């Protein structure tokens, strides 16, 4: 059995996904250097086609699409990643406690989880934003609120299987406390499915964020891909690049994350890896 990294990286689809994500990360970090102008600044003639001056053209107000795309990368990725981290953290907590203690605690926490799961998640996110008023922080809260239930279910299931293993009983016999057993013995053994689900969740978060921004419920004064599509949608016939370019960016990013997620699953799941 080869170790994790060589097997993970030798998968060509994972490699492509990582290259694209790496590129995005560099763009996000160096956004101010790559495009030192405010993405909302009017820099030229409205709806100029892609040209040597404006590589990706300008929008209906004469804003540089290239600058928007670069700054949008930062906003989109930041919101998606932070929302996912919060969802994973909260979901893991709920799932782990429910799975470990079982009984009444499990019943209460799982009914609570199902309550969130039964509400259509996108509509729920819209309602949350409408109530909380649109801002970057509230976007993160809304996305995290609608995406933690699957994590809780995955973690609960894993904890249920791991806690019946004999090494957990051995820790009980050694006199280790519940919290320590959960943190040090059980949770490290649930990481594989958690990483896979969590990585795929980032893709969903990007889609939700884009969709909310498209509807005008995104953070004001923050340029994001969804906002660019929303602003350009009425000019699709006159200026195709306004919608197409950020759309392709979203497509490629979600695809890259899914490729990586599936690659993680293939590598971490011993039943699928070739003997």
């Amino acid at each position, binding site marked *: 059995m080869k170790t994790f990294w060589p097997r993970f990286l030798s998968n060509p689809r994972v490699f492509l996904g990582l290259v694209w994500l790496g590129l995005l990360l560099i763009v996000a970090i160096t956004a101010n250097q790559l495009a030192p102008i405010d993405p909302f600044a009017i820099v030229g003639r409205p709806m100029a086609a892609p040209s040597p001056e404006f590589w990706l053209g300008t929008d209906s107000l004469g804003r540089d699409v290239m600058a928007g795309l670069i700054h949008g990368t930062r906003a989109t990725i930041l919101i998606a990643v932070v929302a996912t981290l919060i969802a994973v953290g909260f979901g893991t907590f709920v799932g782990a406690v429910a799975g470990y203690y079982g009984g009444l605690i499990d019943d209460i926490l799982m009914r609570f989880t199902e309550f969130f799961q039964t509400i259509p998640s996108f509509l729920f996110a819209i309602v949350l934003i409408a109530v909380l008023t649109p801002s970057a922080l509230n976007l993160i809260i809304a996305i995290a609120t609608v995406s933690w239930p699957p994590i809780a279910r995955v973690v609960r299931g894993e904890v249920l299987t791991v806690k019946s293993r004999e090494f957990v009983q051995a820790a009980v016999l050694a*006199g280790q406390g519940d919290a320590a057993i959960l943190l040090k013995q059980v949770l490290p053994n649930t990481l594989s499915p958690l990483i896979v689900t969590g990585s795929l969740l980032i893709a969903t978060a990007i889609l939700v964020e884009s969709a909310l921004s498209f509807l005008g419920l995104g953070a004001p004064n923050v340029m994001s891909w969804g906002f660019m599509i929303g602003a350009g949608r009425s000019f699709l016939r006159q200026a195709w690049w306004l919608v197409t370019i950020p759309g392709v960016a979203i497509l490629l990013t979600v695809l890259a994350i899914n490729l990586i997620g599936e690659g993680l699953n293939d590598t971490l799941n011993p039943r699928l890896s070739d003997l």
Partner: protein
Amino acid sequence: MTDVALSIQDLQVALPAWSDRQRAVAGVSLDIRREEILCIVGESGSGKSMMGKAILGLLPGPHVRAVGGQILFEGRDLLKLSAEELRAIRGCRIAMIFQEPMTALNPLMRVGQQIEEVLELHTDMTQAQRRARVLELIRDVHLPEPERMVQSYPHQLSGGQRQRIVIAMALALEPALIIADEPTTALDVTTQAQILHLIKELQRAHGTAVLFITHDFGVVAEIADRVAVMRHGEVVEQGRVSDVLEAPEADYTKALVAAVPGLKPRVIEPDAKSKVLLRVTNLEKTYRTSTGWFGAKTREVQAVKNISLDLKRESSIALVGESGSGKSTLARCIIGLESVDGGVIELDGERISGRTRAELRPLRKHIQMVFQDPYASLNPRQRVGDIIALGPTLNGVSREQALEEARELLRLVGLKPDAVDRYPHEFSGGQRQRIGIARALAVKPKLIVADEPVSALDVSVQKQVLDLLNDLRKSFGLSLLFITHDLRVAATVCEEIAIMQRGEIVEHGPTADIFAAPTHPYTRSLFDAVPGRDWISSLG
């Protein structure tokens, strides 16, 4: 050569490139004659199962595949057949019986239908003929009430009954050869004896050749006509069963035979003064599971019924029983992993039953456990040193000192001290069980409860681990509660035996007395069921 049913010649099965050896099977040549049972015996990793799978083209390809040799059956080389041709032979001319009867049967289909399906696929019998044949087969494998049996689902049957159904399926088309891969390993001793008897009886009646794969020399002595001993993918020795078992020639066979636990009872070293360490009085434990909506109905299983037991300091008791006898539940109650419903457990005069988990924590270090499954009992994400040092550090020993003690313990159980920095997956099953023992010893307990600690291990490793437990018991002055299904193991380890059946202790006394004259009928049936009993007794 008309009496040869299947001939394997110089078979080579390749393993994936990253395995620790190149060939699972390296140049095996064997003949299985008509109307005989050939036992392939070997330890885990000897390639015996791979060879069985190679015959039917069931190797887990593409990395594991036959790369050389021939398997001749009815004039054809099975390795050269197409998938289509192999399928016609599978089930029809060569049938297979697997280890785990539950996974071999479809849980959603009535067993009668499953047998019928085999007939439907391979013959052109009418439905009425098939029905009649199914009933006949079920009668052949001695299942009660055949008419009711065909209507049952697999989960409604016991393990032994399921294995009988699997055997009936294998026999359905009167195959020329049956390959049985450890068919009795998952069964209780008494059931195993019945199934072995059945296989032998049917094999004689139908004149089938049987290739029987097993790790247990007792089973070999019970059933085989000829035996082949395998090691590292090669046949070390083969011959008539009486020759090989009574006068083994190869060193490896000799070592294996020597490692078979004998039926020689351990004698009490009399020590009248020793005080009682563990006292169990009238212990009761009932499992309740809620069924129906809102848990309206409850199903009760009384796992432990009114059990009393005394264990003296520095002595040992073996709890022997089959699955479902309540022996593991009793152990879990004593160790404090399970609450009790009635009765008292005292350790050194101090009551340990009926405490909360927090109240129990300071007492944990006095009782430790060695678990059954060496693969599940060590956390795969922790270093061996941390696993062993956990108990001591929780009891206030500094980490450095605990790791130092862990090194010393590893040396005591026969591993290298530098194992502290390695992870469990780098060790074999036997080595892991040694680590488990070191962990149990780390907090210097008074009592060790060992729940089937060797049942997952190979015979030769089994003996080493039992010897180790024995030595450590003496040097640490430990008491031992040893749970096992195997009378042979119980006899080698413990001075006292308590036989459990359906939650009760039916017989209890010094090992030597029970072995000399078992009084309870259940104890006697356990003795009769020990596979290869006559041969083992002859070992002395």
